[in-house]
């Protein structure tokens, strides 16, 4: 299946990636090739096969409801591009 420019734009929007005009064409052709590789698996009949999400056949462990974390705000906010009054700053969020 050909992955055309409009698909690239749609998927790039979902993934929040900016694609220039030139990149869009390049990416479309690369992804078309990758999809051709992926589509090889369509050749096999998998009706009735149980999907495998996880290689280990085990179940989720449960944690006791205890507070184990301490406040490290000041230290952790040194990692951030922009903070003020203990808040992370981002360009205006419009509701």
């Amino acid at each position, binding site marked *: 299946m050909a992955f055309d420019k409009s698909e690239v734009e749609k998927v790039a929007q979902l993934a929040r990636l900016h694609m220039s005009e030139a990149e869009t064409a390049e990416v479309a052709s690369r992804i078309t090739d990758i999809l051709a590789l992926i*589509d090889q698996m369509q050749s096999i009949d998998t009706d009735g096969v149980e999907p495998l999400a996880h*290689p280990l056949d085990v179940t989720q462990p449960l944690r006791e409801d205890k507070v184990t974390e301490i406040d490290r705000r000041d230290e952790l906010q040194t990692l951030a591009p922009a903070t003020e009054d203990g808040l992370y700053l981002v*360009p205006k969020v419009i509701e």
Partner: protein
Amino acid sequence: MIEKTAAELSASLAAREVSSEELTRAYLDRISSLNEQLNAYITVCAESALEQARSADEKRAAGDSSPLLGVPIAHKDIFCTNGVTTTCGSRMLHNFVAPYDATVVENFNKAGAVLLGKTNMDEFAMGSSNETSYFGPVRNPWDTKRVPGGSSGGSAAAVAADLCAMATGTDTGGSIRQPAAFSGITGFKPSYGRVSRWGMIAFASSLDQAGPICKSAEDAALMMNVMAGHDPKDSTCANIPADDYTAGLENSLSGLRIGIPKQHFAEGLSADVEQSIRDALSEFEKLGATIKEIELPNNHLSVSAYYVVAPAEASANLSRYDGVRYGYRCEDPVDLEDMYKRTRSEGFGDEVKRRIMVGTYALSAGFYDAYYRKAQKVRRLIKNDFDLAFKDVDVVIGPTSPHTAFELGAKSDPVAMYLEDIYTIAVNLAGLPGISIPVAPVAGLPVGMHIVGDVFAESKLLNVAHQFQKHTDWHKLKPVITGGEAS
């Protein structure tokens, strides 16, 4: 001294033939003289390494005899290391100083290993050549025009060039085993869930697994004794006691049943590589093993299924890189949308973006069943193939890679690059342990033999690999590094 295995160094340190500080200085010197050429390390922690070395020497003087106490190690830059820049090979994290230790890092700290630095890697572990790193490609010590393999290429090159005694790596589709094969060293991917993933930056959560990159199977066993075990911080980490991985190394291989998958000796495999593997197999026969051809009928679909599952998981795992709480943020975003898009487009390299796109597409409305669900079903079939095989054989052996290391830039086509992992990927999809060890080189370039075991049969695999290495010397071959100011 620096060319020794970790096991040998452990003995030398115990015998006080050398101090950890002397050893650490020797490695740091070697790094200073070779890293510029090989680009194996992104970050070198010279000062803290010497401090740790002195502390290890003190501990030893006080009676501590932990096997890896004072042995210098390098961690792949995918493991969060408290207070140390942890980049994952990406511009996105070029300035990220991790505020916590990965469990793997913590375990090696507790064992007294000395951290020399953080090794280069394909960006977010996405690559098979170490050419996608934001910090530039790593060179193969055997031939600096060639790639060391990837994504743990920095760790592989560092071990091969004696820039450390041992290193950690991670393997999502072959990222420990293929660079080990290309670089002529030993690389071990444990079963999924054997080693904690806490603090290991996620690429594809259901496939990622940490493991040793080192100079021998015995070293891998020593490292596994430190790395393996249950971790309550990782829900997917197996709650099964870890073995003493050195305990069974000397077991006889008499009666070992080896399966040779027809599909791993088919079209695409270089004749020279095949010959090296077949010669190695006859070595096993001498040790009392029997060899039998087996079928892994769905192996050819493993790359297809992998390139749905891994990008899909990655597309979500990499959504957190948004320029809000840490890492790269674009300059002067005009609005929120602009901040997201430019941060992510400027912070990620092409291969990462490609995989995010593929994964996003595979999960998007209308395509989920045809791609993601289908791939999960194929994954089941691939696992079933192995389950069936292990009813008749103890280990499965084949080549790690279809050929030896290729030259930088030789594989510009992503699909060609993806097919590099044709023999290793199925093992990740099935969650099995696999090891690559050196066999006879081809035209001066290393060749890796791939040994796969049943789930949690780590000890068996290490035993098989160790016995081979006891009776052969391929793992002792060292590269002669040319082109720089190498020794």
